[in-house]
């Protein structure tokens, strides 16, 4: 009888655990805010371990990069010299355009865009896979990071903060199944939505039927809905046929060591954000070394995030 009771107890336990798993899945569907908070706090709990474990790999990757740079020194030098000449010309063009742009804005009385703030953060976990594409950063609410902030690398848009605890935050990459980014494609600025699918090649959806999109077109954020600031480089169209338009993002998640978190100051949540994220409170006064105005921080963080 004792054995029978024990077996019955075991089966009841299994049943209870399966029910708990099913309940967790329902909770994840029903209340994303609670689940994101739970994820952020779990990440915060194991962050010290992840932070420590990730450093040797960062160092090894840096060493490999440096060795590679050293071996390719002459080639790279020639390439950089060539590129520098080209960029000096572009600089002249850009300065002229910036002047012109400022004058036209003044003429048209365009409302100035709210100033964005930047913060550099280290990637301490990379959980790409079939089930999700996300990163964990070593900066959280304590340094002003909030859900809804944008994450970029020196290459372009990486993703959006989904949840944040005191010292960590979780980034949902643009390649994640849950990611939807309003974008503009090519010179025609065709409007579309970039939808992640848990592979390295997110696809464009909701295009006009007659929209002309071709391989090689650049994809940038359109800024529609305000969830993302406009004009951030996202990727390039690598395959376009009748069924599917695939985009290769500019960033490579395995190479991300430092990223920048942008509070772009827009408070116009999209429909999806309104269900997923509580209204953003204003940023606390920035500590000098972490959050600084865009102008002074951008070049420094850019070099930190550079390859």
């Amino acid at each position: 009888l004792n054995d029978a009771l024990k077996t019955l107890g075991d089966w009841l336990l299994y049943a209870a655990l399966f029910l708990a798993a099913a309940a967790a899945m329902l909770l994840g569907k029903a209340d994303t805010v609670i689940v994101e908070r739970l994820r952020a706090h779990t990440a915060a709990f194991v962050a010290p371990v992840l932070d420590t474990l990730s450093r040797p790999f960062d160092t090894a990757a840096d060493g490999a990069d440096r060795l590679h740079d050293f071996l390719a020194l002459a080639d790279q030098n020639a390439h950089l010299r060539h590129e520098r000449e080209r960029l000096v010309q572009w600089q002249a063009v850009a300065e002229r355009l910036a002047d012109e742009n400022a004058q036209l804005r003044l003429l048209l009385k365009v409302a100035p865009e709210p100033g964005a703030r930047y913060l550099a953060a280290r990637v301490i976990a990379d959980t790409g896979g079939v089930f999700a594409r996300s990163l964990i950063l070593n900066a959280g609410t304590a340094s002003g990071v909030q859900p809804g902030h944008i994450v970029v690398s020196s290459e372009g848009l990486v993703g959006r903060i989904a949840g944040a605890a005191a010292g960590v935050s979780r980034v949902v990459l643009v390649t994640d199944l849950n990611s939807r980014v309003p974008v503009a494609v090519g010179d025609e600025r065709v409007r579309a939505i970039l939808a992640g699918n848990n592979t390295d090649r997110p696809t464009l959806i909701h295009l006009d039927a007659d929209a002309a999109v071709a391989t090689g077109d650049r994809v940038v954020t359109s800024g529609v809905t305000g969830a993302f600031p406009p004009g951030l480089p996202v990727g390039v169209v690598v395959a376009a046929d009748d069924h599917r338009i695939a985009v290769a993002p500019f960033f490579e998640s395995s190479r991300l060591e430092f990223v920048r978190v942008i509070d772009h100051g827009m408070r116009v949540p999209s429909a999806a954000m309104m269900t997923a994220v509580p209204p953003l409170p204003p940023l606390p006064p920035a500590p000098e070394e972490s959050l600084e105005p865009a102008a002074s921080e951008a070049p420094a963080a850019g070099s930190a995030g550079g390859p």
Partner: protein
Amino acid sequence: MKPVPLSRIDVAVRQTVPVAMTLALAVLGAVPFRVPALAAIVPALPLVAVCYWTLHRPELMPAAAAFAVGLLIDLLSGAPLGVNAGVLVLVHLAISTQTRFFASRSFAIVWVAVSVVIGLALALAWLLACLYHATLIDPTALLFEALFTAGCLPLLWWLMRQCQSLVPSRA
């Protein structure tokens, strides 16, 4: 109150090794290895660990621990909450009802059998995730993950056998 002899603390600590090791492998799966494309197919080591300890120290790897490990994986990886938790409990159930089958087999057969269990578990997790998101997720990476896990299995099995001698059973 009688003082607890050191040897009992020692035994108690050693008995936490199976669960602690499995949790550690779950965290290790999230570490950025900076190797292109590895993150997508990082082997399901906690799954292997749950299989091993359920077979060799069942009393130290209870079903609730398997559930907790799965929940940790779900929370850290951003996978739908409950998917890995449910699947690991199912794996625990499958292995613990088949201990007699595994008891007297050669390692090659255990390797194949556990690989099949892991393959089925990953396929089930994929199916649940597809249902959860109501969309078809590209399973290519999962196929590689399953193969990679099966490939890593002998090494991990050997490592855990080395640890096993340190872990007294609770009998």
